[in-house]
């Protein structure tokens, strides 16, 4: 995501959040970006690791379905 601001990630902000000082908004934005990044990394790792458990015969079909 190119826009790392809170509004860039969430869209329009609730009034009380929009009124926060810039550093607090940025802290919320950083926490959200970190959570998304962690989720993305876990997903990428899981996609590859899962294939080791899948019977070899089914792997091509699973790769195709997941888009790996």
């Amino acid at each position, binding site marked *: 995501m190119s826009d790392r601001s809170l509004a860039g*990630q*969430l*869209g329009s*902000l*609730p*009034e*009380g*959040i929009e009124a*926060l*000082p810039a550093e*607090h908004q940025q*802290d*919320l934005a950083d*926490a*959200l970006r*970190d*959570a*998304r990044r*962690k*989720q*993305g990394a*876990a*997903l990428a790792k*899981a*996609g590859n*690791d*899962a294939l080791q*458990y*899948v019977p070899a015969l*089914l792997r091509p*079909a*699973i790769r195709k*379905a*997941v*888009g790996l």
Partner: protein
Amino acid sequence: MSSADTEIRKIARVLGVPPERFGYLRDVPEADLRRLRDQVTTTLFDAHLDVLERMAGASKLLPNPLLAKLAEKVFGPLLAARIAGLVDIGKGVDIAKRLPPAFLADVAAELDPRRAAGIIAGLPEPVVVKVADELARREDWITIARFVDTLPESAIVASLDVIPDHGLPQVAEMLDDPARVAYIVDLLPGHRADTLPDDLAG
């Protein structure tokens, strides 16, 4: 605990950070914090949605025992919670029944119950009670409260049996909808309802 503190704890839970980090949110109106939490939850659950949907689609090709093993050994609670709302309800229920309560409790803590309402409602009561028991042992009142909105009444009644008296006010405090407090009180035997402070019991 103030209602702002309760919301801050819920926001911190969704983001996976300690609530102390967001102390600066204490003066923000509760309604704005609630909206922020909804926005953050939606953003996180919709992030990588295309990949998650493809994974859920691929799950149709695999047997449920293998999917249960993958959920526990590979995906972990966070991703299992993200995918749960995307898989076929019958398949999701069958997979959940194969998983240990401790893992299901981990998933429950990461889940948005609104997105997996079908699976949650389809879980057999003994499974729900075991998960509730594990969550109560961890004193994870936030997660228990989030599920009160989604579980069938019979499962809530059975789960209340494993929540200790000292946990009831905590669960009541964490409920999003104040009307649900009265609902819970009605489900409790009289001597247990008396353990709730008057301002919560209504």
